[in-house]
């Protein structure tokens, strides 16, 4: 063989092999192992499991979601992230995103979130909750503020107008309670936790003018906190049975089964309340923003990329692709088609004609109104879960009646907050 032909043949072989390698790389699956997800039960995630094959085709691997209820999910994800790091994706929320981000248990999402999936399409409020220290950490699965959902028939029968102020709410709730007929004025959350009883107590605290910290100095031990706690405890006397040690499930469950006249809860309740599959009070309810000056509790839950289990860039890309796919427009459209109101987060879906056709104008109006009073009520700091959970225990004791001294309880919390700040 002549040297020129040999060189040409070798060159051609090199180009061919390079092209094949590039093609092979381009088609190489993004994921090499199933994505392990730790989450709390959500209808949207259950629906997502029906499309496993689609993700497998897209990424080359499947996924597995382990579900734990909210408090357990928080405890387990914290333990897992700080120790063994078994999960590739964590379900995080507004209460612990600061802790997870500052502890480097999760990585900034947008570095691994494919641009095609359009992160900017998420509701701006939820994007804000997902942002800490100038970086985006999770893609929303749910979020929003609070709405007052009330039983039109029960209020009408009692001759009571839907309360527009907090004072009216406090005055009306006892009048609406008729325990003999299984009707209770309100349902609150009694179970301990920064995302449980403290979450429902915080709008009262803010309504009376309370604030958590003034710089590094605790400022919550105030008249506002005492008034808020006393109002919360007073309302609890008319709260449905089971809520004294219950949280979201118990209070919404009591309302949806027709035992509660007024409920101020997170916005997903409204979607559940108009769905005959989950509600026994369809057609009997009205929606309004929370009675003034109660602010709505702004919140957001979503999926974040774990740092420990995704040691290399390839694993992070795989987790990022899973999150992008799970929260994509296509999957959100499936949730809308399945009437999963609480699982909708994209503006393109929330403003769509299909959304208005399914949920009607009233709910859309109430959601728009409540958006104006939605606020972040908790202390946006990595130490928040610690402080919030401590107050949750004390508040549960006050609700259970094993403690009666509100001011003394706040003094104890202040002493604990001072210790936290010193660290």
């Amino acid at each position, binding site marked *: 063989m002549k040297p020129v032909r040999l060189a040409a043949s070798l060159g051609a072989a090199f180009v061919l092999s390079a092209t094949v390698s590039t093609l092979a790389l381009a088609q190489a699956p993004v994921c090499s192992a199933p994505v392990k997800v730790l989450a709390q039960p959500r209808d949207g995630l259950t629906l997502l499991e029906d499309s496993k094959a689609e993700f497998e085709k897209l990424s080359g691997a499947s996924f597995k979601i382990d579900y734990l209820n909210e408090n357990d999910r928080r405890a387990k994800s*914290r333990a897992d992230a700080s120790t063994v790091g078994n999960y590739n994706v964590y379900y995080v929320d507004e209460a612990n995103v600061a802790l997870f981000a500052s502890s480097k248990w999760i990585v900034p999402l947008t570095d691994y979130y494919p641009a095609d999936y359009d992160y900017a399409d998420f509701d701006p409020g939820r994007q804000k909750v997902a942002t800490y220290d100038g970086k985006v950490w999770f893609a929303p699965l749910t979020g929003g503020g609070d709405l007052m959902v009330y039983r039109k028939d029960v209020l009408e029968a009692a001759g009571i107008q839907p309360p527009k102020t907090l004072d009216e709410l406090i005055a009306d709730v006892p009048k609406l309670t008729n*325990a003999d007929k299984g009707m209770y004025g309100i349902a609150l959350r*009694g179970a301990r936790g920064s995302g449980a009883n403290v979450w429902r107590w915080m709008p009262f605290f803010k309504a009376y003018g309370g604030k958590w910290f003034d710089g590094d100095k605790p400022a919550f031990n105030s008249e506002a906190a005492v008034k808020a706690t006393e109002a919360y405890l007073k309302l609890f006397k008319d709260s449905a049975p089971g809520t004294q040690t219950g949280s979201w499930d118990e209070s919404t469950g009591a309302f949806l089964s027709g035992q509660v006249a007024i409920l101020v809860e997170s916005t997903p309740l409204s979607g559940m309340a108009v769905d005959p599959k989950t509600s026994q009070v369809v057609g009997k309810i009205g929606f309004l923003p929370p009675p003034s000056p109660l602010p709505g509790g702004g919140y957001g839950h979503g999926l974040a990329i774990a740092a420990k289990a995704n040691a290399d860039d390839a694993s992070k890309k795989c987790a990022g692709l899973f999150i992008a796919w799970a929260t994509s427009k296509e999957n959100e459209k499936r949730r809308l088609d399945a009437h999963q109101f609480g699982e909708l987060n994209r503006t393109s879906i929330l403003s769509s004609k299909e959304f208005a056709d399914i949920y009607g104008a009233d709910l859309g109006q109430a959601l728009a109104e409540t958006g104006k009073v939605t606020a972040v009520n908790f202390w946006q700091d990595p130490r928040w879960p610690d402080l919030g959970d401590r107050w949750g225990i004390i508040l549960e004791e006050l609700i259970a009646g094993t403690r009666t001294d509100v001011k003394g309880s706040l003094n104890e919390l202040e002493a604990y907050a001072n210790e936290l700040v010193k660290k």
Partner: protein
Amino acid sequence: MPRRSSLPVTFVVPTLVILLILSMVPTLYAIIIALQNRELSSTAYSWVWFSNFFDLFSDRRFLNAVWVSVKWEVVTVVATMVVAIGLGVLMFEVASQRLRNVYCLLFIIPVLLPRVSAAFVWKFAYHPLYGIATYPYRLLTGGLIFDPLSKPSTALFAVASVDVWQWGLFFAVIVLKLLETLPPQPIEAARLDHAKRWQIHAYVTLPMLKAPLVSLMFVKMIESLRSFDLIYVMTRGGPGVATETLDMYAFSQGFIESGKVSYASAMAVLMMIATVITFTMLWKRVQA
């Protein structure tokens, strides 16, 4: 003189070494962590020696947890043994062999249920509005509400009843089987002396079964110390801190609330020391 074989040593030593490693490594690690100030959210730590232990004695929740743990231990162990002996004797006295077999099968089912499943089943059974366990109260009082898991005075007993439901019934089967293995002569002799049924059991059968019954009691005492799953699912230590046992509080401090793993380890070490001392003393007293 027979030659000493090294075979027993060959078989026993590796097993003992593995057991020693499995038990001692976590224990030593827990002790070391208890002397530091580690937290989940930070990799930085320093040695604080006995500071965590001193802090525990001024922590009202820890002192409450000690008291709740003592109450839990006494209530569950005593109730389990009473139910086990009562039902075991009752089956021995009144049930035919065929019926005994049916009862044994039924009584073993609760303990076969995973604790978490049992806890969920009973949590729903105690629901004030829909629960089957609270239904008789609603029926008798014309619809009044009874919420045992929400009341500090009843919550511990409500959770303890689930523990007794699982273990008391299982132990009743063991007691019955123990009674069936006793030689019939002493019982016959007592009957000939016109002893009443309760006298036969109080003065003949149960004293004959003292050793296995004491062993059963010790098993239950150890099992009751591991009540975490039941309490966690049913009350999470609430209402307030009414059912917060030491293991529940240690887990709260370590993984739910503040991530203070060193503080939680200090509690675990204290629990271990207290358990070893108490059980050794009780064992010696029983042996004496």
